[in-house]
């Protein structure tokens, strides 16, 4: 009896274990090995830390790395700032059908591929785009305005792409907040600000943490949005990885970058959870 139940458990877990092993663990082990060697001649490799040393000695790589981290943290914070009131409105102010309808509205953009959505932003923001033409037609500007290929455009794209992944956990966690706690907060003398700070945010903390973790990881690893909206100068770290692997055929350096990105995201997520007093198991609940 015990034998069969153990076998059953193993069979149930088999797909996920296979998936993790083949698609996550194996490639990372391989990447780690590749990143720790250097090419001395054609098809001749030697173990060394050269790739990592190169990363720390070349300012471009180092700067891109820091810039990606800072931009991702900023995008995550901005997504949180925008998503929190939206989620509060959906979860607490609305009832019944309109609530489900608005929740659905957040989901609808995700029926279209990310590529098409990003092109949507390009159509709006480019020099001959909708916004530029509208401004000219209104007489607010004299000539065409280029709004693509800068940090603001990247930020807009990143926040837009991440919105759903912040709204869903926030709505879920705010839904579970008893209305009478908010009312009690006011009844005992609190105003909108103090009730939000003392009651709503502490209650929503697990949702905030899980939303931020997901959004941060998605943003940090995003390739399409920074490349398309930021252009050649976007300096996103995933682009560097892409360049090393595809353009320069330098798999050794590319693997080292990939590993560094993994370490970076782990460290920042750990820091964020420590600062907000959450644990990972709480955040992903």
């Amino acid at each position, binding site marked *: 009896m015990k034998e069969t139940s153990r076998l059953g458990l193993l069979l149930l877990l088999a797909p996920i274990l296979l998936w993790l092993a083949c698609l996550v663990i194996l490639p990372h082990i391989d990447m780690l090995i590749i990143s720790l060697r250097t090419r001395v001649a054609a098809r001749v490799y030697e173990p060394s830390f050269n790739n990592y040393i190169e990363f720390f000695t070349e300012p471009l790589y180092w700067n891109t790395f820091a810039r990606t981290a800072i931009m991702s943290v900023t995008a995550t914070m901005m997504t949180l700032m925008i998503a929190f009131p939206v989620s509060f409105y959906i979860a607490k102010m609305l009832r019944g059908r309109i609530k489900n309808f608005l929740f659905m509205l957040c989901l609808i953009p995700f029926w279209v591929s990310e590529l098409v959505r990003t092109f949507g932003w390009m159509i709006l923001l480019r020099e001959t785009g909708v916004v530029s033409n509208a401004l000219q037609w209104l007489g607010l500007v004299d000539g065409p305005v280029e709004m693509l290929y800068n940090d603001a455009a990247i930020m807009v794209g990143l926040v837009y792409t991440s919105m759903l992944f912040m709204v869903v956990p926030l709505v879920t966690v705010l839904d579970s907040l008893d209305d009478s706690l908010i009312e009690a907060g006011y*009844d005992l003398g609190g105003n909108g600000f103090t009730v939000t700070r003392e009651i709503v945010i502490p209650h929503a903390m697990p949702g905030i943490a899980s939303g931020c973790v997901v959004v941060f990881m998605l943003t940090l690893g995003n390739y399409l949005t920074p490349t398309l909206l930021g252009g050649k100068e976007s300096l996103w770290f995933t682009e560097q990885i892409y360049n090393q692997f595809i353009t320069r055929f330098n798999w050794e350096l590319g693997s080292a970058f990939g590993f560094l990105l993994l370490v970076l995201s782990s460290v920042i997520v750990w820091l964020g959870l420590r600062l907000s007093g959450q644990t990972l198991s709480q955040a992903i609940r």
Partner: protein
Amino acid sequence: MSVEVHSPDIDLECSGLVKRFGDFVAVDDVSFSIPTGAFFSILGPSGCGKTTLLRMIAGFQSPDAGDILIKGNSIVGMPPNRRPVNMIFQHLALFPMMSVAENIAYGLKRRRTSKDKIAEKVAEVLERVALPDTGDKRINQLSGGQMQRIAIARCLVLDPALLLLDEPLGALDLKLREQMKVELKQLQSEIGTTFVYITHDQSEALVMSDHVAVMNEGRFEQVGTPQELYYDPKTRFVAEFVGDSNVWFGRVEAADNHRLKVTTEDGLPFLAVAAEGQSMRAGERAEIFVRPESIQLSHGADRMEGFDNNMTGQVDSLLFNGANSAVLVRDQQTGGKILVALPQTGEFANLLKGQDLHLAWNAEQAKCFPAPAEAKTSGTTS
């Protein structure tokens, strides 16, 4: 409502309060005043508008018409956080993200009380609700009764002019509820804060309150002391809702001032009185209420002479419940069942099913109200 001079000892005064939700009138022209230090209950079935009324006083809903005065000052339009009123919510609404002490300190912090003063007041109020060592505990470490007291402490520490309680005992089990009833009443008389308590549980209202308002369909049916409501109900709703009653429907045969001669639908002749404030004429349909404890029981007919109404019947079933035991008697003439409270003398301790019994009560104990249009069958209500 006439214009009154606001005497200083009226804590809360509501006049002509109306609240509508679409076509539904939740609170319909309600006026009342509560003297300082009173324990005032609003008793009514669910959906009668009592919660809406309380939420208007707390400030979570604004009335469509009428005025609310606290110590003579109108608070209509004032946001809830500015009102000198605090509320105990149905599920208490203690903040689970804070400790017990932080919960109590929450309101004081909003008033920018100094840290030392807060610590002092928190300790003081915890002492007062007899939970002096619980300050560092989390809310989920408390028992139901302790949470109840912390919720009260959290409001009392702010010295409100009025404490509103929204059925806070509903979630407790029976034993604890009985205990908390007594505790709440004692606490209220010790601290002297005016309590407004809403409930659908008549025993909570009757046990704790100085005054009770019975509410139905958005209106106050009657306001009075628990004794007045129980012994002199002014409307048939109050007679039906407060306490148990045997109910018969019938027709008034003859009326002599308040004394009535009534024949029930089953053909039983009763002598009864019109309830206070009701005038009944011959020919009118009537509903007759007789309390189970006002019916005399006897094994023999000899002791039942001199009563206005006499009946014989057999024991149908015994409803033993300690001091509240009762017996259901099947009336010999009609087969209808009558609920009679068992006297605590032990005389009827050995009643058996099928035993013959004599019942009797006086006309004063049978109160008549004009019957509503829709016909109902006779029986007991609780």
